[in-house]
């Protein structure tokens, strides 16, 4: 009976079974040969051993807490007030027109109150640094000096050194108050130690003399003229004028908030007219918008908020951006206009033919 059963099972399920001797002849894993003594020694030398340092125990109360104060403001769940008297903390920040904000600064700095009619007027610009790209997700911080029409005394140290071969430009620069105007000979003198460099913040030069300037690269370090910093150019007079009188702003970023950039800068004095101050602010905003990445969608705001302030008052006025920033046209409209132009060109060609 059992034999019969065995027969049936062998018929129904013909399974091929390897013998033990057969299976042993297969290599199931890669074979590890002993590494040579030289390579073994080299690999061991490469390994970095982490030494565990013993740290003395400190109670939690005495540990330094890194308190991160965020500059971001989220007003999502707040609204605007209905009353004509209200407390700011319960509502969204009140939005001022530029003229209105300036008038309220002039109230607090009035001779009967703070008595500071010549105070600095500052602005804060906040941007979103998201680029919507895969490799470079956020914009890096930058510093720039913007050329102005309505100049003012900013009270900063911006001493300049200039290098050029032309004698006429050198005399012009000296009249403008540049600390040192150099030639090829002065560069050699600096290299030998005969001429001492005065204290300086900016170095400006012509592209013709740049090759000679490379000899004292070690002394200038990061301040060496470059196209990126707009300190290298043909028209040196214009560059020095911009550096001496322009508005300097630096867009900063908190390392913990990579998607948010901010910069505080001074746009003028309180005794200037409102139009002049507004024009100065517009110049800086234009420069900031020029850094906007192309990958950003058109409907997303690059500049998220603008505040106006003046020390020693603690107030910060949020400003209506519509009058200050020109809204970019939608992409679809641009394509249409291009198409029309092409059509016109084609028609003109046909006429010529």
């Amino acid at each position, binding site marked *: 009976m059992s034999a019969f059963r065995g027969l049936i099972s062998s018929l129904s399920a013909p399974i091929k079974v390897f013998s033990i001797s057969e299976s042993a002849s297969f290599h199931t894993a890669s074979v590890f040969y002993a590494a040579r003594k030289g390579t073994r020694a080299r690999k061991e030398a490469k390994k970095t051993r982490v030494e565990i340092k013993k740290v003395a125990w400190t109670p939690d109360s005495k540990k330094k807490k890194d308190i991160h104060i965020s500059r971001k403001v989220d007003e999502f769940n707040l609204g605007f007030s209905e*009353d004509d*008297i209200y*407390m700011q903390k319960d509502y969204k920040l009140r939005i001022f027109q530029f003229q209105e904000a300036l008038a309220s600064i002039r*109230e607090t700095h009035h001779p009967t109150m703070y*008595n500071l009619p010549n105070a600095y007027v500052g602005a804060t610009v906040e941007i979103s640094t998201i680029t919507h790209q895969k490799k470079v997700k956020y914009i890096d911080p930058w510093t720039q000096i913007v050329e102005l029409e309505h100049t003012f005394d900013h009270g900063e140290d911006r001493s300049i050194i200039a290098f050029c071969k032309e004698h006429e430009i050198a005399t012009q620069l000296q009249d403008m108050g540049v600390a040192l105007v150099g030639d090829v000979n002065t560069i050699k003198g600096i290299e030998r130690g005969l001429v001492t460099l005065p204290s300086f913040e900016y170095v400006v030069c012509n592209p013709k003399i740049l090759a000679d300037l490379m000899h004292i690269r070690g002394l200038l370090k990061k301040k060496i003229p470059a196209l990126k910093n707009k300190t290298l150019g043909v028209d040196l007079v214009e560059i020095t004028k911009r550096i001496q009188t322009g508005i300097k702003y630096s867009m900063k970023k908190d390392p913990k908030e990579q998607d948010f950039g901010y910069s505080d800068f001074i746009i003028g004095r309180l005794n200037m007219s409102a139009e002049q101050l507004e024009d100065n602010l517009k110049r800086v905003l234009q420069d900031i918008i020029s850094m906007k990445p192309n990958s950003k969608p058109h409907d997303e705001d690059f500049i998220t908020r603008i505040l106006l302030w003046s020390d020693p008052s603690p107030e910060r006025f949020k400003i209506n951006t519509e009058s200050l920033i020109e809204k970019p046209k939608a992409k679809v409209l641009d394509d249409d206009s291009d198409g029309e132009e092409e059509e016109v060109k084609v028609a003109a060609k046909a006429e010529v033919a």
Partner: protein
Amino acid sequence: MFPTSRIPLMGGLSKMSSSLMANVVHTPSILNSRSTYILERARPLPRIYPRQRKRPYMNRSTYVYKVVQQPYDRLMRQQDLQVILVQYVEGLGKAGDIVTVNPNYAYNNLLLPKLAIYASPENLANASLYKKSAEEEAYSSKTSKTLMRLLPYHTIPVVLNQDNEWTIEPWHIKASARKVGIHVLNEASIQIPGPPIRGPDQSLHGKDFIAIFKVNNKETIKMRCKIFIWATKPAERNSIENQFWCFKGEPVHPEEKDDLDLLPIEQFNPDKIIIPSGDLENTIVCAS
């Protein structure tokens, strides 16, 4: 009795109740507890061929389900309720206003105490009957009652110059209130009772006076203002007390003393020591 086998049993309904409500079509809205889960098979069932008689082999994976909808999902959650206010409710609205609120809040705090009624079609048609004229209404807006309660706790420090001549005008108080975080849109709504206060006068430093605000041309609020004499040169400036807005000063006008004593004041917090760093503005920021 009605045949019970025809009725699909759902959720928390017992057999007894189902037998009583035999002809009623059962939907999730009738259930007294929200417990309907909608599920979906994680993997498809094994295929059944047309002439197959045997039941297909089902292993454990056929009994794994995904949850499509839970009782606490956004779609299944109770939606906000629309009610019509019968009376003025602080922070919500006036009588006759239609508001949408959380259903639990509406039931416990509005419908039970009869401050509001359901926004049924009949009630909505008569909603305008509950509205009062501007003169009859006790408060001008939904937030004005809160303002009347809370604003008097704040002190307005008025910075005035030591070197130049001045008399206190409404715009001085408007600008000083804005620094503490109180916006006054209409300058005409500020009143300073009593004879005009003139300076420069060093003896006025730290003294209090009353300013009267009119909210929406209706409610009047009295507020405490404190004079701070400010020298333009930093060396000559008056020193600043810790949390000076928590202390009552002497009145500028002796007639106002009774009114000033009645006004509430923010409580001094001994744990929170604010040492101003030479400037007044830091202290003001903390106060707001």
